[in-house]
């Protein structure tokens, strides 16, 4: 059996769960034991469980609900205790999870507790002669590695967001049975005391509405060079945005950061200046209609998603673009 661990917050299912179900179906397809179970943990999971069950996803035998007051807010101790006993009960061959901030927090602990391999951030799988290897990025996406988990099962695997498509889950006619599972969970033994998630004060800049965005990365070298990009943004009537290191350094405010921990944008035009194209940046801008990359490194992963690219020095190309755009 393959165990998929769903993710929810405030009873709302994280869409990445469906991506993990799609990955599970691909793994189940062609293996002797095709069965999949989906586990959902929390304290108010009825709606999310119903949504999971309603799809009647192919090969999914059960939606297992673990409802407990102590699971209302996520904690690593609470989740690991429950999943450890679920794994002991169900004896899955694999435990699959989306590669979210939450699973980053507990999956390595679960793997360590179980003494089992964990392969993170998986983009694809390849099966040959009964063996499955998991493909994951290394060196900031400059290389990819085919990885084989070692040692006894279950092996744990987390899947990169967007690597599988939730809308490609094969659905069935009848809903999946939901099974409630009771666990003994000692709330006092949970060492972490979480407070409810919150957002920082409303942001002044809403990049999600921008039609055109000029985004700068570490290739801009220093804060004093920002006017180079600002002039291009002005000439294009575009908003200025940035990769994380630019905001970390305080060169631009956090609210201009694009990516998994910043804003998600979908402009008509996204012009990336000196941004390498790490996955955490790409998830925030992949939805742009036209993507342009200007980068001196021809191997930069940003060229993988770009429609148009110029390999070269942004300090030469950008001023030339400005003069071309402002030519009357």
């Amino acid at each position: 059996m393959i165990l998929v661990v769903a993710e929810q917050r405030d009873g709302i299912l994280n869409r990445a769960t469906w991506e993990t179900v799609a990955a599970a179906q691909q793994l189940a397809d062609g293996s002797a034991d095709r069965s999949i179970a989906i586990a959902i943990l929390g304290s108010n999971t009825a709606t999310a469980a119903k949504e999971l069950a309603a799809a009647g996803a192919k090969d999914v035998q059960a939606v297992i609900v673990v409802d407990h007051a102590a699971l209302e807010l996520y904690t690593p101790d609470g989740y690991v205790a429950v999943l450890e006993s679920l794994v002991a009960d169900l004896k899955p061959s694999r435990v699959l999870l989306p590669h979210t901030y939450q699973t980053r927090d507990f999956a390595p602990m679960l793997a360590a507790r179980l003494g089992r391999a964990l392969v993170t951030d998986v983009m694809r799988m390849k099966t040959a002669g009964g063996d499955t290897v998991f493909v994951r990025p290394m060196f900031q996406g400059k290389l990819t590695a085919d990885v084989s988990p070692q040692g006894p099962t279950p092996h744990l695997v987390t899947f990169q967001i967007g690597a599988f498509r939730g809308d490609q889950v094969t659905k069935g006619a009848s809903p999946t049975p939901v099974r409630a599972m009771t666990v003994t969970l000692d709330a006092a033994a949970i060492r972490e005391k979480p407070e409810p998630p919150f957002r920082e004060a409303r942001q002044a800049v809403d990049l999600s509405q921008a039609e055109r965005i000029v985004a700068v990365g570490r290739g801009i070298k220093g804060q004093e060079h920002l006017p180079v990009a600002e002039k291009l943004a002005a000439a294009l009537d575009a908003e200025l945005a940035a990769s994380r290191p630019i905001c970390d350094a305080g060169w631009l405010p956090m609210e201009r950061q694009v990516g998994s921990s910043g804003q998600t944008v979908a402009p008509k035009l996204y012009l990336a200046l000196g941004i390498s194209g790490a996955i955490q940046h790409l998830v925030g801008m992949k939805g742009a209609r036209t993507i342009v990359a200007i980068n001196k490194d021809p191997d930069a992963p940003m060229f993988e998603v770009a429609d148009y690219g110029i390999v070269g020095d942004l300090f030469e190309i950008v001023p030339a673009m400005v003069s071309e755009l402002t030519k009357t």
Partner: protein
Amino acid sequence: MKIAVCIKQVPARDWQPRPNDSKTWIVDRDAGFEMNEPDAYALEEALRLKEKHGGEVVVCSAGPARVAQVIREALARGADRAIHVEDDGLASADAFVVADALASVMKDENFDVVLTGLQSDDQGFGQTGVVLAERLGRPHATIVMEVQVVERTLRVKRELEGGWFQWVAMPLPAVLTIQSGINQLRYATLKGIMAAKKKEIRKAPAPAGLMMRQKIVSLSVPEKTKKTRIITGSPAEAAKELVRLLREDARVI
């Protein structure tokens, strides 16, 4: 407060790695090396905690002899001493092996706080800090953007996706994985560099019999899947052609 900070030496960002002949690791003879980026922020946070609460900052690093470079750099920025688990195999080891190697020298030190980066720039497991916490029997929090210490309780601000955050409290001792941008970095001064020369670096061997939990079967340069229209020519020619394409082909300006 006794603070440990785990620092990994990784190939420089602007260096393009190439797989070796067996495709199981990279050829790194011509690589430059540097401190893993979030680890630099973890070190800065450790130094700030020491400035506020007193105590010492101990750098813990696992890797071949060359990692002495980042250890020296950390000592020059203000760390007090270092422990180096030295073994050539650690350069390409998985997170379990590295966490076990680090735990072997850290468990008797009884650190109040252990800080790691959230992820390494080379292997990118995002596992070592959390596995280390489990090995040391400590609670942990990951992707931390602010640290407060009140008596024997830690209160930390965790980053969640898409601009969300969450405060979590836990008792000391604990392990935190630090996110880049938590603070503004300081750089080594000449005085710091001189002082570092006199600081202790204890070397320890890796424990025997550590087992890898994942094996790299094949390492490769990613296949290009998308047809990007690469515009060539001089900067002026390329810029002109790009503007034309954005106007006439993509019609986005």
